[in-house]
């Protein structure tokens, strides 16, 4: 590795400044992390590679610069009592050049390069730091396309409901307890295909930070996790065009520099552009979707950055004329935009304004008398917010404080016709002003990071204090014991009947008047460390308590009046081991947990339907050739609970909309005793090969999903034996397993091209 070091001391102030460049090309390396090891003070270089570390005390310090796709660079510098130490740092490329997606969390999961992972281990106070590179996400065998959410699902402590559900259930939390932020803007329904895949195009995502349990005080509004996604810029690259096609979508992305220090990026994909489209699931091809990402970043002045981010997605589903019985149509759209201004200095400041919208509807055909009518449900979310934040390096640590205001209006309107998903009309606004402060200090080998967030529930005017704390005790430089604890509240939830598998449509609502804000209190601890700079490990446990979490159990009607507010607990332990570098890389993770809830209305305990007691995930990446990556991913999960359809009940039907009473109807009744699905197991394999052709880099890929062809159960269809001639009898029901895919093994192919 070649490096070039120029030190000049100027008699102005005690600071360290400079530029991070790529070795050989001398191109600036954007967003590199520059850290003083002994002080644990870090800053991030801007898109021109420039960095400033202010208020550095006099002394001899180790300086470390890291950037994804490059080897770390370390140098020792002598900082005088005052003045400027100017450094030009040259980073040599890592063996495999990475454009990165990085995922951080509290449990190690996948490989992203040992240096990058180690940097996260050193940087975060919260228990656990995880990264998944874009290269690895692409190498993972995928059903159709690489997916951020599917990658997160493979982490210990994160449960997936079934093969068709990409929603995250983090450490006992529900799927609506995750806060998705895209460049600071909230995204309410980040799913395509009724939840089969995530909505974010990995071509457009630069980095993901995934916080579970111990969430820093700067985040609020969700109980279980924060998925903070940052779209990629273009200034750190020379610009280029990427094209891709898979069995699901066609994709196009372009990016490049813009002016001095600026960048731009656009990315889009559409299922309409595919060769096979959705036909591997159904011959009727009822589904189309698209999404688009854009980001423009400018540097109006040294140390300042102004960026605009846009995102939109559109899903359409229509199943009708081919089916004589069932008409089903759905459309859901996401839109998010943010404007962010940042200024770096001794006191760094940032201001973010964001707006987000979601529209989801679901229409079904129902029989009213002899006529078929449509029973629609329409959900609209319009939300926005402003966030102001300041941070500064202070001695052996950093301080951060901010204020934010989030608000919005939600509507959920359903038909009065029975047979639709929701009946009634509900419109409500919410306001969540909040202030927060985070402090981080080193005390010997102990790193202490307390924080406090105070929000106000605008519905009720009540104050919601949320203390958060994270500590990390370094037993050795490579091994640390981390503990995190905190409280969170949530006033927005999604309407779902956990007794039914479908639909995947997301319906948001504000907790109605008089209903409480949901709350969680949790603590987690993990022993994390590194061995020989190649292996990392983590062993941890968590305990959480839920209070006033909504449960929708429609009986008698399908309205918000059927909401119940339950308490519960979640406990678990996680263990993971990972190899980051070498011809053979990968990870194995084991998680065990329990989610027990209390039905306050019926005074009975139950298990959340995502209560997976044991899970084992493993991924293996082998590079027999420099251009060839073979991968395998295995997933085992013990069966999760469900509510069986236990019988039919005869009820009289006095239907005002029909205008007369009718005879008795037979209605399925869910049992009061839960069952569990069979154990889940799946083995996927994949291969990617990279070659250059006519100046372009081509990368064909092939994935075989579920190569053992195990027919994992999607859900059980209830079949009452015999006839329904005696409506008074609660009939025993036979449960027939239904699989998610028509064929157990799914073959996916794709081709990416970069110019």
């Amino acid at each position, binding site marked *: 590795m070649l490096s070039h070091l120029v030190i000049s001391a100027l008699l102005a102030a005690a600071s360290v400044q400079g530029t991070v460049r790529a070795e050989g090309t001398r191109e600036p390396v954007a967003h590199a992390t520059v850290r003083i090891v002994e002080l644990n003070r870090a800053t991030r270089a801007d898109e021109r590679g420039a960095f400033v570390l202010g208020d550095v005390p006099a002394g001899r310090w180790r300086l470390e610069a890291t950037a994804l796709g490059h080897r770390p660079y370390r140098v020792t510098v002598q900082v005088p009592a005052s003045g400027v130490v100017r450094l030009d740092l040259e980073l040599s490329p890592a063996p495999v050049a990475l454009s990165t997606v990085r995922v951080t969390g509290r449990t190690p999961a996948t490989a992203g390069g040992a240096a990058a992972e180690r940097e996260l281990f050193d940087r975060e106070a919260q228990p656990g730091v995880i990264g998944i590179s874009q290269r690895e996400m692409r190498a993972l065998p995928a059903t159709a396309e690489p997916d951020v959410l599917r990658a997160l699902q493979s982490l210990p402590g994160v449960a997936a409901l079934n093969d068709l559900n990409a929603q995250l259930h983090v450490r006992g939390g529900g799927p609506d307890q995750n806060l998705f932020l895209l460049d600071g803007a909230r995204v309410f329904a980040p799913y395509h295909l009724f939840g089969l895949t995530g909505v974010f195009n990995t071509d457009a995502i630069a980095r993901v930070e995934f916080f579970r349990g111990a969430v820093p005080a700067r985040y609020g509004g969700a109980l279980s996790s924060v998925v903070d996604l940052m779209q990629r810029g273009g200034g750190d690259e020379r610009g280029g065009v990427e094209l891709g096609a898979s069995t699901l979508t066609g994709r196009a992305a372009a990016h490049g520099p813009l002016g001095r220090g600026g960048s731009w990026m656009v990315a889009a994909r559409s299922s309409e552009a595919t060769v096979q489209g959705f036909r591997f699931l159904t011959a009727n091809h009822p589904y189309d979707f698209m999404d688009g990402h854009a980001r423009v970043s400018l540097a109006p002045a040294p140390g300042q950055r102004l960026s605009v981010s846009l995102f939109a997605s559109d899903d359409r589903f229509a199943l009708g004329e081919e089916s004589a019985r069932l008409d089903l149509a759905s459309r859901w759209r996401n839109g998010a935009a943010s404007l962010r201004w940042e200024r770096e200095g001794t006191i760094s400041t940032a201001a973010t304004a964001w707006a987000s919208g979601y529209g989801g509807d679901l229409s079904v055909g129902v029989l009213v008398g002899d006529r078929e009518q449509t029973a629609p449900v329409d959900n609209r979310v319009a939300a926005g917010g402003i966030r102001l934040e300041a941070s500064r390096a202070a001695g052996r640590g950093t301080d951060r404080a901010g204020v934010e205001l989030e608000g919005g209006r939600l509507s959920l309107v359903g038909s009065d016709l*029975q047979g639709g998903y929701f009946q009634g009309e509900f419109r409500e606004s919410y306001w969540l002003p909040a202030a927060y402060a985070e402090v981080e200090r080193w005390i010997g080998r102990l790193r202490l990071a307390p924080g406090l967030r105070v929000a106000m529930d605008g519905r009720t005017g009540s104050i919601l204090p949320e203390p958060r704390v994270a500590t990390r005790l370094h037993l050795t430089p490579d091994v640390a014991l981390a503990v995190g604890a905190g409280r969170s509240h949530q006033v927005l939830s999604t309407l779902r009947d956990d007794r039914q598998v479908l639909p995947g449509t997301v319906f948001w609502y504000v907790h109605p008047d008089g209903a409480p804000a949901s709350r969680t209190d949790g603590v987690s601890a993990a022993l994390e460390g590194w061995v020989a700079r190649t292996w990392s490990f983590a062993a941890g446990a968590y305990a959480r308590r839920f209070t006033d979490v909504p449960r929708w159990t429609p009986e008698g009607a399908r309205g918000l009046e059927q909401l119940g507010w339950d308490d519960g607990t979640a406990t678990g332990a996680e263990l993971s081991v990972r190899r980051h570098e070498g011809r053979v890389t990968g990870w194995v993770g084991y998680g065990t947990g329990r989610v027990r809830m209390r039905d306050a209305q019926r005074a009975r305990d139950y298990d959340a339907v995502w209560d997976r007691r044991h899970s084992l995930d493993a991924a293996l990446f082998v590079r027999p050739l420099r251009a060839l990556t073979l991968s395998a991913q295995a997933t085992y999960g013990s069966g999760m609970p469900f509510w069986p359809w236990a019988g039919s*009940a005869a009820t009289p*039907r006095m239907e005002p909309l029909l*205008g007369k009473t009718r005879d008795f109807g037979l209605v399925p009744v869910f*049992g009061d005793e839960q069952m569990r699905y069979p154990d889940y197991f799946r083995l996927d394999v994949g291969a990617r090969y990279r070659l250059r052709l006519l100046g372009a880099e081509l990368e064909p890929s092939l994935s075989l999903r579920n190569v053992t062809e195990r027919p994992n159960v999607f859900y059980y269809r209830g079949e009452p034996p015999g006839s329904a001639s005696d409506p008074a009898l609660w009939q025993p029901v036979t*449960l027939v397993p239904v699989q998610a895919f028509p064929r157990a093994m799914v073959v996916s192919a794709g081709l990416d091209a970069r110019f």
Partner: protein
Amino acid sequence: MKRTLLPALALLLAACDDPTATRTAPPLSGLSLYMIVDPDAHPQVLVVKPPQPTPILQLGGTVWSGAQQVAAVTPVPGVEPRDSWESWPEVCHQRHSPVYGVGNIPPRCLVFDFDPQYGGTYRVDVAAQGWRSATATVTVPGSFEIRSASAGGTPPGTEGLQATWTRSAGAHRYVVALRSVLLKDCTREPCTPEDDLPRQEYNPDGWLTATADTSVSVVVPREGLLELPRRWFLDVYAMDRVAFEYLTTGNAAEPFPVPPTQNVQGGQGAIGAWVRRSIEVGSN
């Protein structure tokens, strides 16, 4: 590595449950209770259904108002009424068989000798040998009166129906129904007041609507109304939520059926209440 991984994988697969097997859902385990408390009726009746076609032995129940027991049915040791329609008390037939859809397997019917109060809250406990105790709480809506009612056309209401009534405290919805009673030819035999009493609470040849307001102004569709010689009554029911949802929902319509209302702990079923007021609005 291969030596370790392959046996582990085989062991894992062998330990997995069979995902292709059909299974039987565990049956519902509690008694099903159905009751509509009516402060204008006497006595009060409770229908008890088993979740399986098995006899219910030593069945008894109590009704409580706060800490005070207001009614009880105590099982007589060694004496078990047969579960047959013939053994049903007449009041059970009159008041509940058409509402509760008892079907071919007769349930048990408990008759409680008490007069509920308007606005009163009652807890009903039911126990039987070998079954979990089942209990539910019900609050009776307050009293109210029909202020005015007019129905034009033949049958009445087909050219306009207007009615107003006072508010019933605690009522979830008002069900407004047109009910007809076939006129009896009193020239052949003497008529009695009972001849005007409907044998069913709901006549399938009538019409109804539901509202949260205390008035209604509609044109009743002619469809479904028999034009035989009948006397027509306008009934207004002030229902609590359980009674209303039990009687107006329970549609099996796909894809999202509405499971029946349940408010019985330790079992299934619905125990609700209504207050009914009625006025004659014409004949044809």
